[in-house]
């Protein structure tokens, strides 16, 4: 098991965690979206590699969804949305880069400690995968709580979800992985459409009311 296959899987899952870290300190929305596209592309590679070494052709479908939908369609759509909303120039005040990075490192350490300790019996590939996946999930949560802008929160959620897909594909032979990744894509599409339709700019507290009134006026 500890051959080249394991090393490549390890490399790809590890890169996903690194890209998650990149996400933590982006203060411009465009940059954040580009990093997210990279995140999804790395995920697609990682899933495709898992499909190859597990001889599970259905996982190629999940990889294709990750590449086509998450790495291309969603970032492009969000690019256009933030231009329409007029927030593409906004600079977000992230809660101290140093502090967030430290918190991120702490979360990765935490997930390594938890997952590696509870899974000594599992096969090493799945084990490492789960530990990395939990790190990605926790960093995704961290991105969500340190941002105020609705779009960057959604990006945080989507990176969290990439971590879940990594975990699901790492669990060898898990059924319904494709179905679950489709269900998640539907969820994300809903969120993105929601941002666009409702012009949600900031977390929970501001909505562009003028745009909303115009919208209602059109309907009546």
């Amino acid at each position, binding site marked *: 098991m500890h051959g080249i296959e394991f090393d490549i899987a390890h490399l790809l899952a590890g890169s996903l965690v690194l890209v998650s870290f990149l996400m933590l300190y982006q203060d411009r929305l465009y940059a954040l979206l580009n990093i997210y596209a990279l995140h999804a592309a790395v995920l697609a590679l990682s899933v495709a590699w898992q499909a190859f070494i597990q001889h599970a052709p259905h996982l190629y479908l999940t990889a294709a969804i990750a590449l086509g939908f998450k790495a291309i369609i969603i970032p492009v759509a969000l690019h256009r949305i933030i231009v329409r909303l007029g927030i593409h120039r906004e600079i977000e005040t992230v809660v101290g880069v140093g502090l967030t990075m430290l918190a991120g490192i702490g979360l990765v350490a935490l997930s390594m400690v938890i997952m590696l300790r509870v899974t000594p019996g599992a096969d090493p590939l799945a084990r490492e995968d789960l530990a990395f996946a939990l790190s990605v999930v926790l960093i995704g949560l961290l991105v969500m709580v340190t941002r105020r802008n609705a779009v960057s929160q959604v990006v945080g959620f989507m990176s969290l979800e990439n971590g879940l897909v990594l975990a699901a594909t790492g669990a060898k032979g*898990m059924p319904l992985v494709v179905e679950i990744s489709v269900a998640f894509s539907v969820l994300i599409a809903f969120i993105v459409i929601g941002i666009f339709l409702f012009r*949600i700019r900031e977390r929970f507290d501001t909505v562009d009311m003028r745009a909303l009134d115009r919208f209602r006026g059109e309907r009546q």
Partner: protein
Amino acid sequence: MIDALTGVLLIPVASAALLAILPGYRMTARINVVAALATFLTACSLFLIQPVTGPYLLVDDLNKVFIVLTTFVAFTTSVFSASYIGHEIDVGRLTPTFVRFYHAMYQIMMFGMNLALVANNIGLMWVAIELATLTTVLMVGIYRTHEALEAAWKYFILGSVGIALALFGTILVYMAARPVIGEGLDAMVWTILVTRASQFDPALLNVAFVFLLLGYGTKVGLAPLHAWLPDAHAEGPTPISAVLSGLLLNVALYALLRFKMLLALNPAAIAPGPLMVTLGLISALFAAFMLYRRRDIKRMFAYSSIEHMGIIVFAFGMGGALANFAGLLHMTMHSLTKSAIFFAVGHIAQVKGTQKIADMGGLTVTHPVLGWGLVLGVVAIAGLPPLGIFMSEFLVVSSTFAREPWLATLLVLAILIALGGLFLRLNTIAFGEPRGPAAPAEASYVPMFAHLALVFTAGIYMPPALVTGFENVARLLG
């Protein structure tokens, strides 16, 4: 072959498709009622004919109770919804297009909840709960006001995070089952998981349960994770508040209970009880205090739902035949009572044109039927004898006193504080100086009083068949 089990799933899907294309709200509202009734009757027939358990669907004693309760409340809510929506169209808060969308979503939500309840597969159950969540998010935001969108967004984000955590837990359960059962579908099937649970890796199961508790606990509305619940209840249409409180919280609770059963079968895993007891107690106490500062009537009853879900999770966490029985009874009574209260509140908010408690008063004088209906509902939900909730709360408290007197004291404290908070507000709303418009209400009182009558009867007399049924389920829960 179409049996009752597929019927429970197919009727909502078919009627959702039908409702999405039919115009005219009067007819669609009626079709909605008929479809909900048909689903309820089909669900009842599950008691007569036991369907076969497959790799995807399952019916046992535990989920029969949940399915029948869910479909019943969904049916009565659809009756209430018909008159509620009629009024909303008359005052122009909803347009016919939105109503068409609303009815289709109502049936899809029914499908999601029924599927979650009959799923024999932990992955399928997760997908179904996600579906039910998505549809309720859309309905919470249906009024398109600033507050409604904000509430829907908050519900969406918190619900999604909860659902993501639950999925991670689900994957971990599969990881724990795989070495024992083998790869593939079998390692996600409840009926197979349960038979082999004692051989699973306990450490992995423990971590999985923590994720599942946090994930599905968000949907149950347990205290540190409840932030979406009051907003979603207050800003959406009232029938949706009734369904959220009465049904969706139960469905998430059902998922938790299934995983709890799995853990209980593994002697080396942590006992899930103490975790649930702690979260339940925190929720009950927290929500009881929060009842005092509420200005919005729907928000107040949303906090009351958090309190009762706390009590129910507490009871199931205590475990044992008696506490499980009490939890099950309390869940049933709470669903019936809380939806009855929301039926009353919906019409009250419509006649008064507001949800602010300060702007409504003297309801027993201006609208005697609605006013006294609300009084009866609040008396029931506060847990006064001789109504059903008194029975179940008494059972929870007395069974806890025998084992952990301190916990029982805290629980009694929460119940009493909540009682004070509810009556303080009820006094203003129902008695007090008449305030606000006094125009007669065009309301359907039947669903509300039907629920209250059931709760009242259950407080005095429980049919022996029901008692044995609940006892069986309580034993099953361990």
